[in-house]
């Protein structure tokens, strides 16, 4: 009964979404307050129905109701409860239910917390959000119904891919989807603004919190996925430029650009047309990612079981949503009035440079990802674009971006003095030079680019600190005043400094691990010793163990340095029965200076075991830095200005909000 009710709830959600996408929109353009007022309760009702459907599916997973096909195909009685629950979104149909849950959830949040939005804008935003929902509900109900039944039910489920039975990967989709769907809010705001024909600083102030929240979630999602790959896949890789990884990275790049231009719209009432376009394209890339994962158009480790018929539906949806929004943009954008003017050398100018580089980087990743498809369609030639292409093109684009990240915040609005800004960064220059020399000394003989990369990252971190110190007049005013200034500094400033510093940490981690990682591939017999970056690794042998749903060979390795015992590390080679699969569970010793990473593989005929030893300097800084970036974003999110501000004051000044609706 419960699955049927869940199914029906989805149908009801579709009905509500249909109404919500039409009535408030008509009401807003015809100034019908009662029609406008449909938006909020509809959004809340829609969320209620979707939440019910989600819970219904969740119950089916928790009780292992194998009469539901989706549960039978993706779950198993022997799975730990946590993974039964998270298995809901580890497959195509279930993940779509998660998607619409978030979509409806964000819509309901705007309905509940968007009290300070003008009713017409809010109505239009919710209408666009509902229109997106209609597409997804139709997709689910017509092609990917998670509540389809199988009678008679099988006695046992077909199990979940053992690779997905993992905390990191279990929580990676919710964060990722929160990011994608969060950007749909920016999209809805942008379309609503285009329909209204007006973009003003107040609009930017409303859009920023949603975009920032989405950006934080997406950063966490990508970082979790990367970290999972590192400890799960057995050879310590953490980014592969896989098409589906790129599909999540592209919205992140544009989303970062959007966050920064929204500041210009908010502070200076400029760059409106470009900001709107960014909002449209960021979500377009999210939808494109959905298409790439589920249509079978590109090969990838991540792709769900693919089906071209589903691909046709998603493509049609993509064309409809993105196409119509871009047509609207072509028609309406030219009439957006330009605002504040500024010189090329200014904070606005620096933010334009930031956007230029981020957009170019995103476009480059896009070209690299889509080129095999493009060439096959046009010239019937198969070419493969792997990591070497992206490393060669993306890296160089990041260099000027990071370099200017330290300078930009020091420039004032409208017109800035580059010499002055650079002058204030003298300390940063000095520290950067010191870091470069230190790197050269300690890593003599390594790649030259590594020295440059570490110096660049140091430049960014110290630059962020210098900017912060400058703002609180550290050293130029009494300590008490600096302290007072620091406490009263807007949270957004704190957030910026923290986030930029976090980025610097990420760059350091990437440079260090890419440049100075050491790898040793050996066949080791019990008693063999190997040297790894100054450590000695001794192989003691293996034992066979049995886990909850697998059998494994566990290797025992002892790590020592100059005779002193450091650690016992025990990687495993696991064999799962359903579906039949072998995985390698590496043993990792994470430390701030470097990780020691050991993976055990196949036994060799000679009696030894295939062993991979890695020494990875600073690799955990990558994810630590990412979380610092997210912390900065969250701090920024709690800025008072996002809740109090012009919108509230405008409402106090304009006693009749319906007067605004008469546009």
């Amino acid at each position, binding site marked *: 009964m419960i699955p049927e009710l869940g199914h029906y709830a989805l149908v009801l959600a579709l009905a509500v979404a249909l109404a919500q996408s039409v009535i408030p929109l008509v009401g807003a353009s015809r100034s019908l307050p009662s029609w406008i007022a449909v938006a909020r309760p509809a959004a809340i009702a829609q969320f209620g129905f979707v939440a019910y459907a989600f819970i219904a599916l969740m119950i089916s997973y928790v009780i292992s109701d194998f009469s539901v096909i989706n549960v039978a195909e993706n779950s198993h009685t022997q799975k730990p409860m946590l993974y039964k629950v998270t298995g809901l979104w580890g497959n195509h149909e279930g993940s779509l239910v998660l998607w619409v849950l978030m979509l409806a959830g964000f819509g309901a949040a705007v309905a509940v917390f968007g009290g300070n939005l003008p009713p017409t804008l809010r109505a239009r935003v919710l209408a666009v959000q509902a229109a997106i929902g209609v597409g997804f509900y139709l997709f689910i109900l017509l092609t990917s119904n998670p509540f389809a039944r199988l009678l008679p039910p099988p006695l046992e489920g077909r199990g979940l891919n053992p690779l997905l039975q993992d905390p990191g990967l279990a929580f990676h989709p919710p964060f990722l989807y929160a990011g994608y769907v969060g950007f749909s809010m920016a999209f809805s705001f942008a379309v609503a603004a285009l329909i209204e024909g007006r973009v003003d600083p107040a609009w930017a102030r409303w859009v920023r919190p949603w975009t920032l929240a989405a950006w934080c979630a997406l950063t966490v999602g990508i970082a979790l996925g990367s970290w999972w790959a590192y400890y799960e896949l057995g050879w310590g890789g953490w980014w592969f430029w896989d098409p589906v990884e790129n599909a999540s990275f592209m919205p992140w790049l544009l989303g970062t650009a959007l966050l920064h231009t929204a500041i210009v719209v908010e502070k200076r009432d400029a760059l409106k*047309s470009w900001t709107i*376009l960014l909002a*449209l*394209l960021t979500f*377009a890339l999210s939808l494109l990612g959905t*298409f790439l994962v589920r*249509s*079978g*158009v*590109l*090969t990838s480790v991540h792709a769900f079981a693919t089906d*071209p018929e589903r*691909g*046709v539906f998603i*493509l049609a949806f*993509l*064309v409809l949503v*993105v*196409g119509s929004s*871009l*047509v609207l*943009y*072509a*028609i309406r*954008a*030219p009439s957006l009035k330009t605002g504040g003017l500024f010189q090329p050398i200014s904070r606005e100018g620096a933010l334009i440079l930031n956007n230029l580089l981020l957009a170019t980087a995103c476009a480059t990743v896009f070209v690299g990802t*889509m080129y*095999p*498809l*493009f060439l*096959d*369609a*046009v010239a019937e030639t*198969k070419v493969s674009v792997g990591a070497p292409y992206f490393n060669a093109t993306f890296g160089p684009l990041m260099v000027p971006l990071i370099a200017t990240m330290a300078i930009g915040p020091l420039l004032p609005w409208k017109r800035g003095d580059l010499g002055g800004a650079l002058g204030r960064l003298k300390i940063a220059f000095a520290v950067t030079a010191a870091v470069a020399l230190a790197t050269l000394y300690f890593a003599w003989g390594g790649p030259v680019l590594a020295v440059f990369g570490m110096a660049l990252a140091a430049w960014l971190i110290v630059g962020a600190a210098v900017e912060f110190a400058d703002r609180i007049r550290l050293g130029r005013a009494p300590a008490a005043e600096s302290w007072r200034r620091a406490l009263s500094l807007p949270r957004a400033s704190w957030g910026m400094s923290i986030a930029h510093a976090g980025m610097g940490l990420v760059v350091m981690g990437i440079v260090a691990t890419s440049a100075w990682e050491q790898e040793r591939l050996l066949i080791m017999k019990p008693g063999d010793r190997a040297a790894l970056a100054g450590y000695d690794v001794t192989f003691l042998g293996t034992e066979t163990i049995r886990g909850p749903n697998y059998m494994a060979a566990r290797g025992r390795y002892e790590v020592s340095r100059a005779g002193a015992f450091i650690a016992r590390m025990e990687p495993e080679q696991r064999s799962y029965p359903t579906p039949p699969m072998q995985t390698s569970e590496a043993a990792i010793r994470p430390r701030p200076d470097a990780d020691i990473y050991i993976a055990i593989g196949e036994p060799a005929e000679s009696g030894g075991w295939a062993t991979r030893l890695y020494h990875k300097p600073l690799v955990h800084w990558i994810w630590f830095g990412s979380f610092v970036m997210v912390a900065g974003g969250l701090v920024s999110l709690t800025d008072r200005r996002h809740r109090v501000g012009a919108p509230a004051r405008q409402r106090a000044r304009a006693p009749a909000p319906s007067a605004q609706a008469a546009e």
Partner: protein
Amino acid sequence: MRLGTVLPIAIFAALAVALGVGLTLNPREIPSALIDKPVPEFDLPPVAGKPLGLASRDLKAGEVALVNVFASWCVACREEHPLLMELARTKRVAVHGLNYKDAPSDAQRWLAEWGDPYARAGADRSGRVGIDFGVYGVPETFVVDGHGRIVLKHIGPIMPADLETKILPAVAKARAQR
């Protein structure tokens, strides 16, 4: 309307077309690098239980033939096997086998159970000859003309539609060009 604001929709339109075409393509199918090139030189011993092995000189004997890469551990091979049996029975085209990375007893047992359509079958135990052919999965089928040139490579099991629309026309064309 300014150029700058029309550009996004124009680019998107092109992208949508490319994606639409992409849905009809198969990204896992890698075209052969050996089309219109001679078969690699090889000389394989017979599969256990069969009298005749397979060598490159057999493919240059003047007759168009199919070279079918198969293995006893290959599930998809069983699906296409009735078609190959039919081809062998009706003698529409000669069918030779390349037994890829198989144990002799396994291959022999498999042919006994599922039928043996191969005039000649070579045992490629190490898989080196397969690599020389550019084999990356099983089953694959090559159409070789009388002069030992590869004219077509079919990846995956042969479906009746593939036979009628791709393989037999290629055979006919190769025969006509002799």
